[in-house]
């Protein structure tokens, strides 16, 4: 939308009338802040002293009704709307690339219901996920959604990008945990998904909006499962001679048991990050596993795990490394431990079935290392299913180009190469970080003719294209 100062003030007045004067900001400090999320390019851009992409208005709505009114105004003036939760996404999904409105959801952070009988908890989606987890913990339960961004992101952010936590192998991804949601559609209608997700009343609407990254509507309320805290949690570390043996053992474990944590590190990550943080000195492929629940069952399950590991020449490293990893699971992400600018880096997580996963690992590793001198590749598998697993592949370049525009082009070439290697070998464009701005251009390659389903939804629900433009390939 092109508007002059006169028009800007007219629109601002309307927005202030909806949410209150104190909840509309055009402060420069806010505009800078909302222009930098966890996406490497936005951070690099700021590091080089470049002005980040900026919204015109930053709004802090307090209710779904206010959001409804905002979207009606935005549709009338055709103003882009970018929903912001914690801003901790790594894919640029929340960045206001088209200007317009930033809708910061964090004022909508209230607990709505704790239902002990159904073991569910309902809250507004602007709540930081750690707050929801603490509320569950107060009653002796857990959501079991424990991602590395637990303290950084909001409930809405976790849903919008289809997130995952470290316990997912037993308890599921966010899309398995969510029971129902309230959503404000782009036209301002406030809708609810059905009370429970398991039914035969057509497709589960939850799954249309989970992962939609603010392009189809704004999730304002959600209900999640609660789990009892396990009576017993046992860790075990194992060292395999190589990634191949570790993957085979992991597959066999998953096809018999349901560990809460199963992480397998390739040789490169074992001798770098794992050695640094938890002190494993040996070469090979390190596996960290946790089983939990009733102690009697856990004891038997651990015996089965040991038998499987022995079959693939895995060495039992005891429980200490696993416990140490668990204690340090968030330590990895603090400044000084995590990769940081001026390094160039990225996580190209992909997911596939067991038949293809190792092939994908080698294809991505070879594609990155052979095409981009000076780029390292490390990987681990951290979320497993009965049918396959994901790979958390990371590339690291210690000395990227100094020029920010040259750096962006190289960054995108690396991403295109790595992700295409995954997709060409049966992998999916992303496992749990989402698409955002970073991978938007590759969505049509991933989906092929199936993309018209998403495009059709977009066209019907958001005919003016105001919702989070340039994201998710929509």
């Amino acid at each position, binding site marked *: 939308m092109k508007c002059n100062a006169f028009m800007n003030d007219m629109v601002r007045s309307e927005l202030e009338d909806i949410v209150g004067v104190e909840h509309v900001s055009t402060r420069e400090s*806010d505009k*800078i802040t909302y222009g930098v999320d*966890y996406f490497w390019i936005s951070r690099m851009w700021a590091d080089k002293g470049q002005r980040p992409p900026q919204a015109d208005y930053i709004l802090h709505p307090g209710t779904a009704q206010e959001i409804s009114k905002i979207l009606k105004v935005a549709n009338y003036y055709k103003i882009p709307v970018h929903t912001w939760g*914690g801003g*901790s996404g790594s894919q640029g999904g929340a960045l206001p690339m088209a200007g317009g409105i930033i809708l*910061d959801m*964090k004022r909508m952070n209230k607990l709505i219901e704790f239902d002990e009988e159904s073991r569910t908890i309902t809250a507004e989606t602007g709540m930081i996920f750690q707050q929801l987890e603490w509320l569950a913990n107060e009653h002796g339960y857990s959501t079991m959604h424990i991602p590395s961004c637990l*303290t950084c992101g909001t409930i809405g952010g976790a849903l919008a990008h289809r997130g995952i936590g470290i316990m997912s192998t037993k308890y599921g991804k966010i899309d398995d945990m969510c029971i129902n949601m309230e959503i404000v559609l782009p036209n301002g209608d406030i809708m609810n998904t059905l009370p429970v997700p398991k039914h035969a009343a057509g497709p589960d609407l939850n799954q249309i909006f989970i992962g939609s990254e603010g392009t189809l509507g704004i999730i304002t309320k959600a209900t999640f499962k609660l789990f009892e805290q396990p009576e017993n949690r046992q860790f075990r570390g194992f060292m395999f001679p190589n990634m191949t043996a570790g993957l085979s053992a992991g597959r066999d474990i998953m096809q018999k048991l349901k560990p809460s944590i199963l992480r397998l590190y390739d040789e490169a990550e074992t001798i770098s990050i794992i050695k640094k943080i938890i002190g494993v000195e040996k070469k090979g492929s390190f596996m960290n596993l946790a089983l939990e629940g009733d102690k009697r069952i856990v004891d038997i399950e651990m015996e089965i795990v040991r038998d499987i590991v022995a079959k693939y020449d895995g060495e039992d490293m005891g429980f200490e490394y696993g416990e140490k990893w668990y204690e340090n699971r968030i330590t990895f992400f603090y*400044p*000084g431990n995590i990769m940081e600018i001026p390094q160039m880096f990225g996580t190209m997580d992909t997911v596939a079935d067991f038949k293809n996963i190792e092939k994908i690992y080698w294809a991505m590793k070879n594609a990155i290392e052979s095409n981009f001198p000076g780029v390292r590749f490390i990987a681990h598998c951290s979320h497993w299913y009965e049918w396959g697993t994901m790979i958390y592949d990371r590339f690291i370049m210690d000395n990227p180009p100094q020029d920010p525009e040259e750096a962006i082009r190289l960054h995108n070439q690396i991403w295109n190469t790595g992700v295409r290697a995954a997709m060409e070998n049966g992998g999916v464009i992303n496992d749990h970080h989402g698409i955002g701005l970073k991978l938007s251009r590759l969505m049509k390659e991933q989906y092929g003719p199936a993309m018209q389903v998403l495009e059709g939804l977009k066209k019907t629900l958001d005919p003016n294209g105001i919702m989070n433009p340039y994201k998710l390939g929509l």
Partner: protein
Amino acid sequence: MMSQNSKKHTEACRFCWMCRHLCPVGLTTGREVNTPRAKALLLSMVDRGEKFDKDIAQAMYECVLCGSCTNDCVTGFDPTIFIREARTMAAVEDLLPKAVEEIITNISNTGNIYGVQKPKYTGTAAKAEVLLYIGEVAACKQPTLVTAIMSLLKKADIPFTVLEEEPASATFLGDLIGFVEEVRIQAKDCANAINTSGAKTVVVLDSYEATTMKQRYPEWNCTINADVVTATSFIAGLIEEGKLVPKKITGEVTYHDDSRLARDLDEHEPVRNIIKAMGLNLQEMFLNRRMAKCCGSELLKAYAPELAALTAEGRWEDVNRTTADTLVVVSPQVMNVMGAKVPSAKQIKDLYVLLDQAC
């Protein structure tokens, strides 16, 4: 111009999201700028050519300096370092928010943030081994608390003195403009006044001021020739020694750990021992001791009352999830901030007042 130390911390924090869930201001306003990473990002952009202006300066005052973020950081970074230094920059470059300027004027004119004549109190002796340092918040706003603690000292047969003209401890000025020479001079004057009294023990009523005296004064070469103890640990000690024997009181209470006592001084148990000695049933809030969510401060209330009201509401939400009907506090600042927003089904009581009634 920021120091190298501040730059080290801004560079580390600018792209780190890990502690945002603990910021008492950010949790209630929901604004991204009310997170440590946003403040670091803004200052790092200033270091890269962005103009440090009134808007960015204002953002630096939307913080209680409660240290919750610092306490969380496993790699040892401390946002309060660069926030304080940014406040110094704001003062030097004439970019202070108007409300902050007014408080600095009050301190300059009267020695306290309220700009009033500080009430005078007298101890049991002109000279004594124990000096009670009352502090400006208790002296000006919580006379009942002062009366209660003095009564307790008398009941325990502890002769004590107070300074006739009690100087400011430099705590509030340090929070407003950072640790600059003017602050050190104020601290020096306070240390000198305490030393002149000849006391061997200084009992400090306000944990903010106890923190300054115990942790900052040595850094600033402002030596106090006496033991500096918090009022809570001193009173708990009197109970332990049998000098105060409280009667049992029935009731269920919860307790708010104020941030400087719990985090900076790492003192949690003396208060709980006092509560236990009175027989009260203490129901802990989920976030307690070092993890306690800050309720705001008297200084924040003075220059940004709307923010202090929000932070207080945020902590009352935690209180409301307990079954206790009474919130017990020991800080005059907490009493003022939380006391202004008491929900209808709850009450707030000062621990010294309760203890005085029980002894």
